[in-house]
């Protein structure tokens, strides 16, 4: 791995510098630090760290986040509720909902809130715990049950898409904050200078039902170089990667040599270190023009690979292809990879939509786990799978045994994590017989609220999820801060608890 300039260190230095410059004096001897700490020097790689640049020893070196944009139905995929089978079309008992907010889409339904048991068959798969129930919609993922840590008790506070997806990705329901990926880029830095440090992919779907926003991989008030870089399946894989028509790689080399000569001239006159830094960035761009096509060229993958990921992986833009790209990126030192798969929003026709959605993602997700495992990379690669909320036990719209829809459900939903220091083959958290409320092991309803200093075991607020992700990557979510408008902002706001029960 490349020894490189490290943002955590950069951050510390920035803070020190800020104090040096912005406040009353701190002591003597600091003056000499000024040169060392100039941003230009940093940008030139002046500050270098050893291998451990983290708050504590990291379990995972990188993260691959498979984001199911919308709300995958925990009730049809992960959270097995056999008792609901006998309650078809019965109203959700009032004591279950106990006055909780319902979206405007189902609040005034004529048929009330009729229970819709899942039409899918669930099977118990061996894991390292009490077994894992998986529905027939995810046959491939079920085969890696022993690697998964499935959390049934994830919860959020937002009930509509835009606020909810913004919340889980940025820690705030309204725009303006850095994304999880930006925080990771800021905290983890870069291992491969020839590839972006934070890569985002959009996987194809048949149900592009909800929108994505640049803010989900954006930097908010942080410098924009921490933003996610789209790896695209259409046009240039990285924006503006390819030379214009009529310009060869050789031409570019000559252009860059001339450009460097011009910029050197500029530097000689103005001595602005930023100019030197830019010369270096032009060179990195040149290398990226080789390393990205090499990354995207799957010809060095064996047939074995495509057996694992499926033939779809050969078609750019499919979820399977994105997963394969993710593995290739991970191999090349990219630490922060996110795949967005849209269409998990089955207000009606859930079976049709979820069958298609699951088919999109099932084999690729499982293949990624297996592939990382056989390459010895799963141990230090954290894989996260999940959406922004779950779906309701009650039906939205017309209800039959075979067809139904489900509204948004923030109070509990299932996600899974694998590898990267997470306990393999366990489940965490429980929900009631309707997959409506989080309960303890005895079935008592828990009503967790995100509270600083108080954690309810068995639950995982999305701040807890993010705190745990950071923790596994060696970062203390309380100490990874960025000052803006006088406040040291955190991804987890003033909340978040590392869920140690799932950490290996």
């Amino acid at each position, binding site marked *: 791995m490349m020894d490189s300039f490290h943002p955590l260190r950069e951050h510390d230095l920035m803070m020190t510098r*800020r104090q040096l*410059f*912005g*406040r*009353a*004096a701190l002591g003597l001897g600091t*003056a000499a*630090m*000024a*040169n060392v700490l100039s941003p230009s020097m940093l940008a030139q790689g002046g500050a270098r760290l050893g291998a451990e640049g983290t708050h504590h020893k990291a379990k995972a070196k990188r993260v691959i986040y498979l984001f199911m944009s919308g709300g995958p139905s925990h009730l049809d995929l992960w959270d097995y509720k056999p008792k609901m089978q006998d309650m078809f079309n019965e109203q959700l008992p009032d004591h279950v909902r106990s006055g909780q907010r319902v*979206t*405007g*889409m189902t609040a005034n339904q004529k048929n009330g809130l009729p229970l819709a048991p899942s039409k899918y068959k669930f099977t118990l798969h061996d894991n390292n715990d009490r077994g894992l129930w998986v529905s027939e919609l995810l046959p491939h993922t079920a085969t890696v049950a022993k690697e998964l840590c499935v959390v049934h008790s994830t919860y959020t506070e937002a009930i*509509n898409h*835009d606020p909810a997806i913004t919340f889980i990705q940025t820690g705030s329901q*309204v*725009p*303006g904050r850095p994304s999880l990926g930006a925080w990771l880029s800021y905290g983890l830095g870069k291992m491969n200078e020839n590839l*972006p440090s934070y890569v985002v992919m*959009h996987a194809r779907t048949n149900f*592009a*039902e909800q929108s*994505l*926003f*640049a*803010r989900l991989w954006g930097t908010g008030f942080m*410098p*924009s*170089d921490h933003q996610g870089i789209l790896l*695209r399946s*259409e*046009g*240039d894989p*990285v*924006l*503006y990667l390819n*030379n*214009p*028509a*009529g*310009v*060869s790689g*050789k031409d570019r080399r*000559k252009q860059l040599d*001339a*450009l460097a000569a*011009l910029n050197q*001239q*500029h530097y000689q*006159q103005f*001595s*602005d270190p*930023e*100019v030197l830094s*830019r010369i270096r*960035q032009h060179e990195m761009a040149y290398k990226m023009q080789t390393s990205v096509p090499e990354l995207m060229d799957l010809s060095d993958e064996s047939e074995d690979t495509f057996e694992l990921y499926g033939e779809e992986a050969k078609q750019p833009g499919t979820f399977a292809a994105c997963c394969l790209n993710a593995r290739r990126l991970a191999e090349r030192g990219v630490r922060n990879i996110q795949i967005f798969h849209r269409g998990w929003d089955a207000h009606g026709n859930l079976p049709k939509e979820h069958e298609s959605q699951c088919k999109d993602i099932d084999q690729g997700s499982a293949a990624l786990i297996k592939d990382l495992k056989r390459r010895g990379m799963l141990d230090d690669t954290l894989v996260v799978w999940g959406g922004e909320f779950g779906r309701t036990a009650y039906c939205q719209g017309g209800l039959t045994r075979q067809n139904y829809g489900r*509204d948004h459900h923030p109070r509990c939903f299932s996600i899974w994590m694998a590898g990267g220091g997470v306990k393999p083959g366990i489940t965490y958290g429980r929900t009631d017989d309707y997959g409506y409320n989080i309960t303890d092991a005895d079935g008592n309803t828990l009503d967790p609220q995100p509270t600083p200093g108080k954690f309810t075991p068995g639950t995982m607020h999305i701040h807890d999820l993010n705190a745990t992700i950071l923790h596994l990557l060696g970062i203390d979510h309380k100490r990874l801060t960025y000052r803006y*408008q*006088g*406040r040291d902002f955190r991804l987890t706001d003033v909340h978040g608890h590392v869920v140690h029960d799932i950490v290996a």
Partner: protein
Amino acid sequence: MVCGVAVTMSSAMLNAEPIDFSRQILPILSENCFVCHGPDTRNEKDLRLDSREAATRDLGGYHALDPDHPEQSEILTRLRDKDDPMPPKDAEKQLTEAQKQLLEQWVKEGGAYDLHWAFKKPVKNQAWVDAQKVDYPNPIDAFIAAGMREKEADFAPEADKSVLARRAALTLTGLPPELSDLSLHMADATEEASGKWIDQLLKDPKYGEHQARYWLDAIRYGDTHGLHLDNRRGIYPFRDWVVRAFNDNMAFDQFITWQLAGDLLPDPTLEQQLATGFVRMNPTTSEGGVIPAEFQAKNNFDRVETFGTVFLGMTMVCARCHTHKYDPITQKEYYELLAFFNSTSENPLDGNAYLYGPTLNVPENQPAWHEWLELSTRQDALLKGVDADTVTNSLGSLEKFGDWEAEEWKRSKSVSVDAVVPDDSAFEELKAEHKGYKKDRLGFVNEAVWVKFRLRSPVAQTLWLTFSGGTDSAVFLDGNPIASPTRQLPDQRFVSLPLVVNQGEQEVIVKMSGTEVQVAQEVRIETPWKSWSGKKDWAACGAADQLRMLADSKGPLAGMKGRMEAFELARRLAMAEANFTTTLVAKDLKEPRETRLLNRGEYDQPTGDPLTPNVLSVMGTLPASAPKNRLGLAQWLTSRDHPVVARVLINQLWQRVFGVGLVRTPEDFGLQGQQPTHPELLDWLAVEFQDSGWDLQHMIRLMMTSRTYRQDSSWRPDVSDPENRLFARGPSYRLDAEVIRDTGLWAADILDPHMGGEGVKPYQPSGMWMAMAHPASNTKLYERDRSHRAYRRSLYVYWKRTSPHPMMTLFDAPSREVSCVRRSRTNTSLQSLGLLNETQRTEMARMLAGRLITERFSDQERLDYLFGLLASRPANQAEHKACLDLLSNMRERYANDEESARSLISVGDLPSEYDLPAVEHAAWTQVATIVLASDSAIMLY
């Protein structure tokens, strides 16, 4: 060697001077203590350290700060307590030894408190400035020199004249200087030359475009709603108004007032109402299932927090849920401030609608505004001269005027715009009323639709015909062209003209040619006479109808003086108003909406009594005469007593001119923000700004004629000050995304100078919107402009807030979802790819290359021209060598591969205007590409 760090080294460290509480102690308390002992302490018994009164309270025989025996203060003990120290051992933030010593010194000196610097009214030390006048005629230099003197530094030498000319042009207009202007300026050896140069730039309409952009960042201007569907929103007339306001050098207090409360001014003008688009700029949603009350609250949170950032330099967000941890803002005050905004009448949900009312009809773009303002003035003058009695006598009990029937409407298919009147077989029947019809969409630029109908009138009279149609639309009356071809401005989509009809029956044929911007297909017939026959009251007829009645050559007023002018004005005004567009504005409800404090900021937890709108007490009070609405809020902001506003705004201006602010955290003037590098200068400027009548250009002139601004910007070996906190060198930074793009278009001579109008869509990699957009969104398809619109200044690039143009975000433009008063300036490899490979940049390079080859005759001259355009100076020797080497290399390379050469010079839509040898053109394109990307071109220095 002098060290910049030492600027803030406290002399108190050496015990030479007493402690300055606001500058030295308050930041330590705020950073380390207020989190537990600050304004938001929950329990009344808890110790607070944010005021002397609280800190000296008797805690049961002892005091944190002992007023009588300072040396017995508990603070002194706890600071050094091994077992139970403060801050506690496990606190995230620990004090340094130096901080402890400062606190100790402060306590021992008696523990005096003082207001945070920003909350004290700025004072102008004019006597001191006057005393320095001999050495420093420009007061700015006096302050900067004083700071440097402390560090034994002096000003850097003045930069070269050409460098300064370029710097000034970029600072003011966001473009390099025109070479013709530059050479005149270089030849002007008089003392006034530099002042004249600045004045000339201030008069350039590009000035307003460039300055407006910073404001649009601050107030988060966007062309879409910003949330969920992120649909289109019609508010660009606001953007164009900001440009005009800067170009007119509108007094800034007025600029603020119109935006906050133009609608509440007496008898507001169109522009005053339009300016309230500011209030409507918050992102909005209409996502299925959202609750209106929730977004009523969220929209207002956003408004009050943006207001805080832009005008107060205050972070308000903390106080939404609890009393501010650091700054003296209570939660109640937050909601009192919010109450000013809580009574606007728009629906909290936007309905995903372009016309998210209330809206206002206004001219469409800058030329249209200028024309309309001029015509309105003339109309007012003309109508003033009309005697109502005379008119009333002439009109009498007029009957038949204003009657007509239009029947047998027929319409042709869309045909080529060049075709002559189609024969009858091309027409189909069309359902329309006698007043006209509206349906479908008009075709594209090269198409036309023909419509005909029979019109019967009981008298000869002038009717008014309005229809959608672009350039080369035409009207025929009984076969005779009455207006053909119509010449219009590029963005006009409607034609409106007087139709002088005869008594009896006639055939009207309308040729409606397509427009660049798609509009509905519409024909409308109107008459001014109805307004008279209804009321028989001239004064009640309305200016537009009055004018048209005066203008009617067939009407009863035809003999009156001024008819010809009335006709001209009526014709032009009708044309102007037919092309009006809509813009979002603020209006208040008749009855104010009740505002209550929201517990923890939750929309469904209002608590306590209804609140009256009020301002932050730490910044004074609402002026006694001020109404308790947005207008009163504006009066408070612009009052001479306001401690912060002028400072915050002048700091934003300083940042625009010098690249960095006097306060490096322009978004935060609170306790946690950075202190100004030159507090006395900031105060002097703030008061000068107010004294000048909020004259922005006066302040800019002051800054830009200062020796401080005019310094060479080379980093100095004798002054170590990487952040330039001493301002001991001129500004130097990478230019903003917009400036980089505009400069290239300008150098290539393809910049479209047209100002204003709907956002433009230049090249963008395909599928970027589609990959993210909701299927129901009307911004999922990026249909790029294939006309001159694609070459307009970047200010006008369509701003989709959930996915702004990638060349903008690549170079640090904010998303405009939230306020941004300071852009980051990153330096990344992806920027390199954008600079060298993006389609429009390649197109610029080849157009620029064509310009070089055709306008200059030797390689040497061409290079000097190229550098002249981009760096305002000829190329130096090393640059010549680097470029000529590349050039000869590329000539050779393309001579062997003409096909590649032709590919390169064909990138982009623009046809090459030059019939040039492909090899030579391609080789120069390569050279132009790198010079366009070089730091001499993309940096200000």
